[in-house]
């Protein structure tokens, strides 16, 4: 027993294991990278949180939401705004750091033709003042849903808000109902994930 312990065998297997492990970790991602195609448009990632910051930067108001996974992200040209789109709809989200309230922000975003339509209160979170309005000014069943969500801040006259403009694609034949419903669900999930901090 002691003889074997005192003259240890050369352990080639251990050396091979280490070399193979290191080589694999080094080379495998490079090979895989060559196999996975580059998407034409960058999709929104899984659990991708989009952060909006007010004029105050780190010290100012902040808002965040989880964007709908898999949707195309189209906001490269408009910093501070989120624009995502799929076959059924497109959502544009912008932060408004100093708004009077959700109703006022919503009204300011409406076209003249929809200025006098009634708004609907949304029950999203008790700390939010949330209003929505849906209108369809063009022929062809292409409704637009605008949602304003503001932090309830009784101490200040102005409060940070998010404005979401959801534009649904035309659907004259009704064949894309499932897609539109799916887009509505995506909007609901996105609204539920909204956070606003001062």
């Amino acid at each position, binding site marked *: 027993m002691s003889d074997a*312990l005192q003259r240890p065998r050369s352990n080639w297997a251990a050396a091979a294991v280490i070399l193979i492990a290191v080589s694999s970790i080094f080379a495998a991602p490079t090979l895989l990278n060559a196999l996975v195609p580059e998407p034409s448009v960058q999709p929104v990632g899984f659990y991708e949180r989009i952060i909006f910051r007010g004029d105050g930067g780190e010290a100012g108001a902040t808002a965040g939401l989880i964007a709908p996974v898999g949707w195309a992200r189209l906001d490269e040209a408009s910093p501070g705004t989120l624009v995502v789109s799929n076959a059924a709809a497109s959502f544009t989200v912008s932060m408004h750091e100093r708004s009077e309230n959700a109703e006022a922000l919503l009204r300011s975003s409406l076209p003249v033709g929809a200025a006098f339509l009634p708004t609907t209160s949304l029950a999203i979170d008790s700390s939010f003042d949330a209003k929505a309005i849906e209108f369809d000014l063009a022929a062809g069943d292409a409704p637009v849903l605008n949602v304003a969500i503001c932090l309830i801040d009784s101490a200040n006259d102005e409060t940070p808000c998010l404005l979401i403009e959801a534009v649904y694609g035309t659907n004259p034949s009704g064949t894309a109902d499932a897609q539109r419903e799916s887009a509505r669900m995506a909007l609901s999930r996105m609204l539920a994930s909204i956070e606003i901090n001062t």
Partner: protein
Amino acid sequence: MSRVEARGVTGKAALSWQAQQPVFWVLAALILICLLWQVGALFGGSATPTVIGMGLLLATVQFALLWAVVALITRSRVIASRDIDRGLSIVAVAWGMTVVPVIAAQANTQFFAILRRLGLHSVAASIAAPINEDLLRLAGTFGVLTLIAACRPLTPLDGLRVGFLVGAGLEVAENAAYAFGSSGAGEVGAQIVNAIHIMLVRSGVGFGLHALWTGIVGAALAYCLARRQSGLAGRWWVLAAATFVTMLLHSLWDAPALSIRPEPQLALLGGVYLATLALFTIAALLAVRAAKVVPSYEPAQLSHVAAQHEES
């Protein structure tokens, strides 16, 4: 435990210079290549001499703290470990400082590109880092344990210590890299403050996590190898379970924020750190217990074999 018993069945501590072992040359070659690469990258980068100096100084302080932790663990009366040659300890640290960050940086970059294309960029760090870094740390721990095993029977405490040192090496190198990267433009004073700030934040939030995770996995690996060395079944599931759990903890640590508010994120990080500390403590206690029941640790047997060795 007497000095003879502590030095193992061959009567001497595990030696770092083992030219007859292929593992020795694999470790040496990889460490040298990656060290040269790191030095080239460091001096060819944008870091100013001031920031490099400050980063190295802070890295030394952090390393001293981690070394003190490992000395405290392995030299305490409660869990007195057998000797490990100082050279092997340095090899363990060197692997963590050079091979792990260099290879992992390359692999992570490629992995991130793949995950971005698959729409997983927000969770890329929590997927790529645990796979690449944890497996590289495990490979280095395995290499050093192989060298120890060539000299004397392994104990799980060897794995705990070697793993901790490999992880400590990575942690110091990672934090130093962040400090070097903080250089930028500006006055020397501002650069120094920036480097100190980064090192304090990196060291303060999750101090020793890489070391603790690798210590846990190292203990499990040494346990399996020690059993094989004694002719028993390897119980590799212990290693698989330890690796999985520590990878999961690493993944949670790197996971995207749960909220834009800091409180939930701090709660998650605190939970991961506490879980890591608890697991490390359990691993250390189990390692002590396992060491007591390994047959080759019987004092009489050790003394006998050591005496044989001295005669020869």
